[in-house]
């Protein structure tokens, strides 16, 4: 019998004491009042960090017990569950989009994922369609059915137990088995035109696909050990699979849960490393960075083709492809760390991007690896996607470049600007920087408090890059001044240009902690909580020190106390 909600012991705090050194999380540092805050949810799980109350022990944060699958997770789970050759993406396309949830970067905030009338109807229709597809195709059905048994009823029972274990992502209780078998027995009436066995299985499949135990990740463990509630092995398996694959556990992970090997940190780490070598993790890593780097914004890249005749309307599409290839290369091929994302000049280009980067040689529509001139480019913030997505059609946009770096890279939220901002004045012979500075940094103005201290110093270093991300040394006939002294988490760091800024960001522990924070939020499907602080800080230190690859960082998150335990208290 597999281990279910067993007397599983928590990892002892004393053991964790070797993993990290308690220090107050330092993401909140000084800056201009009224402009900034950390990116976390003050009303989120755990109630947010309390001033002067540093958390010094890694532990779980309060979270939902019923986390509905995202549409991507549903699609992947159905493919795996029904052992389909292709994901049922068209069916998922009929699901209404989940509403935006402000204050959370990713699309998997479990508190916002509900089943309303529209989605329930779509689930019903999808379940009927899928069950019909599978049970009217002998080949597909054979993938799911257990071997023949003495009677159809016995075979149906075996099916309910084996399939149900995968659909519910845990062994069924005897009551659950009986309830599904009761449905199976209604098959002949429900599908009078089908053979009784197949008709019964069809109805059972429909029910499994509509079951809350399939549509939600349900965590039922309640037995607290010390100050946390250990998840059972199947619950850990689901957290792992949905975190690392956005899909249900595979057979190997189920086997690990059944054997109780997810009871130990080593067992979880072994599975996590295996899973991170699977192509399914590539999609998750890609999705994470697409959101983090706001790649969807690239679709709005619309440079003036008069001003920039060397590019096409597909520049944004090509830039998105570059970002994807770059991230995959750093994370998986080079086993790199966050510093590599911020500072590596190695990337991928096609002919259009090669022109923007000023590369010599012959290029085609195919993307090929290149190393950019390290005197001009370092990392994702000096690539076309970020630069062109934060530009007008003709000029770079240091304001939005600076806001992006502040919010996404430093985890320092910038307050919204006031309404009715007057337009930028005409250049009148000035550089873009001079125009922006004159407009936003007038001493004593409302604009200056945010722009002078927080925004512009993070945006001006990119003035060497024009509206399509091309490198430039002059602007409007004047030499480009890309120097500034940005405030990076309380530290004023003089930089000459974007290369210096990239190095400064990569050398800052809090920047690495910010990146770890994003991963914690994404893998948990909830906003950061103060209980996460010690973990985030520990990962930030190690990442900055250069001894934690991104893959290792992800493994650290999913083997952490917070990932394999529940908080002893529920959400408010």
């Amino acid at each position, binding site marked *: 019998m597999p281990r279910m909600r067993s007397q599983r012991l928590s990892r002892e705090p004393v053991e964790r004491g070797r993993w990290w050194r308690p220090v107050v999380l330092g993401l909140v540092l000084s800056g201009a009042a009224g402009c900034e805050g950390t990116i976390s949810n003050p009303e989120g799980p755990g109630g947010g960090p309390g001033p002067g109350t540093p958390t010094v022990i890694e532990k779980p944060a309060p979270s939902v017990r*019923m986390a509905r699958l995202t549409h991507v997770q549903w699609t992947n789970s159905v493919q795996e569950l029904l052992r389909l050759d292709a994901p049922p993406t068209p069916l998922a396309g*009929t699901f209404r989009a989940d*509403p935006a949830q*402000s*204050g959370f970067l990713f699309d998997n905030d479990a508190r916002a994922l509900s089943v309303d*009338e*529209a989605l329930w*109807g779509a689930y019903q229709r999808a379940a009927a369609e899928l069950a019909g597809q599978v049970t009217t195709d002998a080949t597909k059905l054979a993938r799911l059915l257990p071997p023949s048994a003495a009677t159809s009823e016995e075979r149906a029972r075996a099916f309910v137990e084996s399939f149900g274990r995968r659909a519910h992502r845990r062994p069924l209780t005897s009551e659950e088995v009986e309830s599904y078998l*009761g449905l199976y027995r209604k098959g002949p009436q429900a599908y009078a035109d089908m053979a009784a066995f197949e008709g019964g299985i069809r109805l059972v499949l429909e029910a499994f696909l509509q079951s809350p135990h399939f549509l939600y990740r349900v965590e039922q463990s309640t037995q607290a050990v010390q100050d946390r509630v250990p998840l059972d092995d199947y619950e850990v398996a689901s957290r792992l699979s949905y975190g690392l694959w956005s899909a249900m556990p595979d057979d190997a992970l189920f086997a690990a849960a059944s054997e109780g090997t997810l009871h130990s940190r080593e067992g979880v780490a072994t599975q996590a490393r295996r899973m991170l070598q699977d192509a399914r993790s590539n999609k998750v890593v890609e999705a994470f960075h697409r959101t983090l780097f706001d790649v969807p914004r690239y679709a709005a890249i619309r440079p003036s083709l008069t001003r920039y005749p060397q590019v096409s309307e597909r520049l944004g599409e090509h830039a998105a492809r570059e970002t994807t290839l770059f991230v995959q290369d750093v994370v998986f091929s080079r086993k790199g760390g966050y510093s590599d994302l911020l500072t590596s000049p190695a990337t991928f280009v096609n002919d259009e991007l090669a022109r923007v980067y000023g590369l010599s040689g012959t290029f085609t529509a195919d993307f090929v690896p290149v190393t950019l001139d390290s005197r001009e480019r370092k990392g994702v913030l000096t690539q076309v996607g970020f630069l062109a997505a934060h530009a007008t059609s003709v000029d770079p946009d240091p304001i939005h470049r600076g806001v992006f770096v502040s919010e996404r890279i430093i985890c320092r939220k910038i307050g919204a600007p006031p309404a009715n901002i007057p337009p930028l004045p005409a250049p009148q012979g000035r550089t873009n920087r001079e125009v922006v500075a004159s407009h936003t940094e007038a001493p004593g103005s409302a604009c200056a408090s945010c722009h002078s201290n927080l925004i512009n110093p993070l945006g001006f270093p990119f003035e060497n890059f024009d509206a399509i991300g091309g490198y430039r040394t002059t602007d409007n006939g004047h030499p480009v001044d890309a120097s500034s002294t940005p405030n990076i988490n309380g530290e004023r760091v003089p930089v000459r240009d974007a290369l210096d800024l990239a190095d400064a960001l990569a050398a800052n522990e809090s920047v690495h902690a910010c990146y770890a924070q994003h991963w914690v939020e994404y893998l948990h499907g909830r906003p950061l909580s103060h209980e996460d602080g010690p973990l985030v800080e520990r990962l930030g230190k190690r990442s900055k020190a250069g001894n934690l690859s991104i893959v290792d960082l992800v493994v650290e998150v999913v083997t952490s106390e917070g990932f394999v335990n529940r908080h002893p208290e*529920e959400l408010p």
Partner: protein
Amino acid sequence: MKLSRRMVLKGLGGTMLSLPFLEGLMPRTARAADSGARPYAIFFRQANGVASAQTTSELGAEPERFWPRTLGALTAESIAGRAVGVLDDHRAHLLLVRNVNMKDYNYGDGHARGAMQGLTARGPVVEGAGGGSESGGESIDHRIGRELNPQQRDSLVFYAGRRGGWLGGPCLSYRSSNVRRAALHDPWNAYQTMIGGPGGLTPEAREQLLVRQRSVNDLVKAQLQALQQRPELSASDHERLDLHLSNVRDLEVALSCRMRADQELLLQQQAPGYDSTDGTEVLATARLHMDIAVMAIACGTNRAAVIQVGNGNDGDTRYRDPGTGQLMENFHYVSHRRSSHDASGGIITGSDLLHHHVDVQFASAFKHLLDRLVAYQMPDGKRLIEHGVAVWYNDLGNGPAHSARDVPFVLAGSCNGFLKQGVYVAASGGGNPNHNRMLNTIGTAVGLKNAAGGNLDDFGDPALTKGVLSELIA
């Protein structure tokens, strides 16, 4: 709902193949037993203000192109040449209201302030969050659904336009504070949601489906109820489970209120263009949403609907210039009078007139809604438009200034004689916020009450002056 009505409707539909699909379902006396004159509200939202008289730094003095020339009784002359003039056929049913002022809450963004306050009359959960805002309260459409709909079904929320974008796309309807509702996008899926089951089935297949689904529902309900009873669940978990369970219902509706098969096929064929940036396609989608909303109301399955066109600033949609036939810049740019989402772009020549052209296209879409409501003759001999109210409203008073004042509200339908008709009035309250009282007036007209059983007067922000706009009441 009586299952037998299906056959009645089918029979009626069979005689009217040449008409748009709604007419095929004209309920007439078939509805007498289960309809009654239940008032409803349909909200049709436009973003970015309207081309009213204003002075902008970009274009200077812009003439009035939206409102009637004079307050008082509406005449053909008073609305001729104005955007609302498109509605002349329905002049007798109109109630145009100016001087509706929202509160200048600190959403950190004018569009968020207007869109998220528009149906909630509430400020933000977190002040100054800009595009990261959420409203601090339930929206009026949801309140109507929760209190007045059969089975407490959710109001219908539709979205036409490219998915995503500013404020995440759909951003009007709220279940409660900070809990934004999803919207129906694809009209075919919207239709299937409205009817409560799959489309495209024969009557016999639907009967079989009902039986099967009931068996599955029993199992699912039992599982959900077992989960609900677990003592460790948080309030958050309970709320989501309660919502889920409330929607696991049987499919009688699906068998009673639906289009004919040929009409369903037509809808399926028209639906794929819904995720578009082309304003013509976007408004065509909105018209399909209107058809579905009106059908739901005519059938008595819902009493509130919201139709949102474009995202938070409708910044992805490009409407067509009727003069050139070409697509304009996106509507947000046009409304700013500049080629940018902020104040940095170059001035768009003639953009005030372009804005007016967009207003006219919205007016034409609203006219389609009114045409549909008029097409239904109800058992009491009245037209459906007389039973309820359709509301064409905006997030902003104007584009460039993002004003919270003088936000256009164009109402059509009296809610069984509750609201004035055929007039253009100025709402009371001077320049103070009174938009919450507009929502209270609509809520009252539809049948919502306050805790004491009187007119709904306390919807929205409790810090605002309570009450209704009595000058709108007949």
